């Protein structure tokens, strides 16, 4: 699977969804009075959130060809003034000589920190937190409106094996680690705003250090669970015509009908692919954060997006910008996953009678299985019948 393409598509959708309006371009500015340097109008335009074309200074980096001869007194720093060099540093257009060989050490100034911080502390927390509270509220309303989905006619009393022990192990490895990562991720993201005022800095510091340890190290269990469940269930989750019929019937959620399904119905397939694709994306951005500056991937992803979608995302990113994008993307994808998984937890527990048993002891009531996965039951019974006869 082409990860970059998938990530690019998902990122584009998320970007478009989160940015219904684009910043207006700032009006042209006459900079002759300042000799081409910044004017008050430029500053005012930025404060008004207008999109200022920065090329007047990002490309104004001096010209070595104009350098005074070095034999003369008070040479001109290679034809470049201090302001030229400062601008070059700011726009990462220099190649400094350094003692530290670290990948990010050559970037002397990187001014993306505040926009990243404001995005992280503002919209990401606000919209992400609202999405979590929203899905919980929606499920509460749904529960009182629809009630628990019961087995029509009651349980049969006999059971059929739905998932083997290894399948349940893989599921719970993925689920348990995801919950741990979700909780510790939320603590890391929101703790400063919501917990420090309640518990104080010292208590939160202990909590934050523990959260960091769990988040950094349990991540490997999540990735293993993701790989296990992918290989165990991908064959059963390939979309087919039956899924369309299931979706048209709304899964029988509102009509109380029972559209036919094999081992996994269309709703479960949506959850499967959501977890797999977003799980892959969140894992890759997480690895990029675990190994700082060593796994840059956004410049390449943006280049593919630009060529496919005609967008104009930056394709040259400073190492710090790569980390900032990885951090924001990691949070956005995690929130989308949490919303989907909360709904999945609901329908697999309090929302439906008999559903939890599938991942509890692996044995589900036969009547439940016939109502929700009739074709799968028929397949299993046919196999067992074949086994008895042979």
């Amino acid at each position, binding site marked *: 699977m082409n990860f970059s393409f998938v990530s690019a598509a998902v990122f584009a959708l998320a970007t478009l969804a989160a940015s219904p309006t684009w910043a207006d371009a700032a009006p042209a500015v006459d900079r002759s009075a300042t000799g081409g340097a910044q004017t008050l109008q430029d500053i005012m335009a930025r404060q008004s959130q207008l999109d200022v074309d920065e090329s007047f200074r990002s490309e104004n980096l001096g010209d070595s060809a104009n350098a005074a001869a070095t034999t003369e007194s008070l040479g001109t720093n290679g034809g470049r003034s201090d302001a030229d060099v400062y601008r070059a540093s700011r726009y990462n257009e220099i190649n400094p000589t350094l*003692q*530290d*060989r*670290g990948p990010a050490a050559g970037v002397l100034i990187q001014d993306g920190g505040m926009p990243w911080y404001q995005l992280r502390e503002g919209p990401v927390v606000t919209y992400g937190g609202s999405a979590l509270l929203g899905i919980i509220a929606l499920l509460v309303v749904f529960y009182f409106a629809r009630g628990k989905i019961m087995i029509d006619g009651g349980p049969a009393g006999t059971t059929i094996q739905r998932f083997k*022990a*290894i399948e*349940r*192990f*893989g*599921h*719970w*490895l993925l*689920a*348990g*680690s995801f919950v*741990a990562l979700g909780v510790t991720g939320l603590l890391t993201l929101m703790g400063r705003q919501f917990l420090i005022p309640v518990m104080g800095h010292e208590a939160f510091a202990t909590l934050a250090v523990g959260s*960091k*340890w*769990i988040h*950094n*190290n*349990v991540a*490997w*269990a999540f990735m*293993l*669970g993701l790989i296990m469940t992918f290989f165990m269930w991908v064959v059963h989750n390939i979309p087919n015509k039956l899924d369309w019929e299931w979706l048209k019937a709304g899964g029988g959620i509102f009509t109380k009908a029972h559209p036919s399904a094999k081992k996994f119905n269309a709703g479960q397939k949506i959850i499967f692919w959501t977890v797999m694709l977003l799980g892959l994306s969140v894992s890759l951005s997480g690895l990029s954060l*675990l*190994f*700082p500056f060593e796994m840059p991937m956004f410049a390449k992803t943006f280049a593919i997006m630009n060529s496919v979608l005609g967008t104009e995302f930056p394709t040259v990113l400073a190492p710090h910008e790569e980390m900032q994008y990885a951090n924001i993307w990691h949070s956005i994808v995690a929130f989308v996953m949490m919303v989907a998984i909360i709904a999945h937890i609901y329908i697999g527990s309090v929302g439906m009678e008999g559903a939890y048993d599938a*991942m*509890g*002891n*692996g044995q589900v009531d036969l009547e439940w299985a016939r109502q929700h996965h009739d074709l799968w039951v028929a397949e299993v019974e046919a196999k067992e019948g074949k086994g008895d006869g042979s």
Partner: protein
Amino acid sequence: MKAMLSAFVAALVIAYGATQILPTFGWSSAERGSAEFSVRRD
């Protein structure tokens, strides 16, 4: 239930194992950001 509990235990074992194995490759989440680790002082 056994599968669930053993998976949770496995997640903790893997997490602990990561802290033991990763440093052998020259990486540690605890040391990663420290000046001693990331900056060479000549």
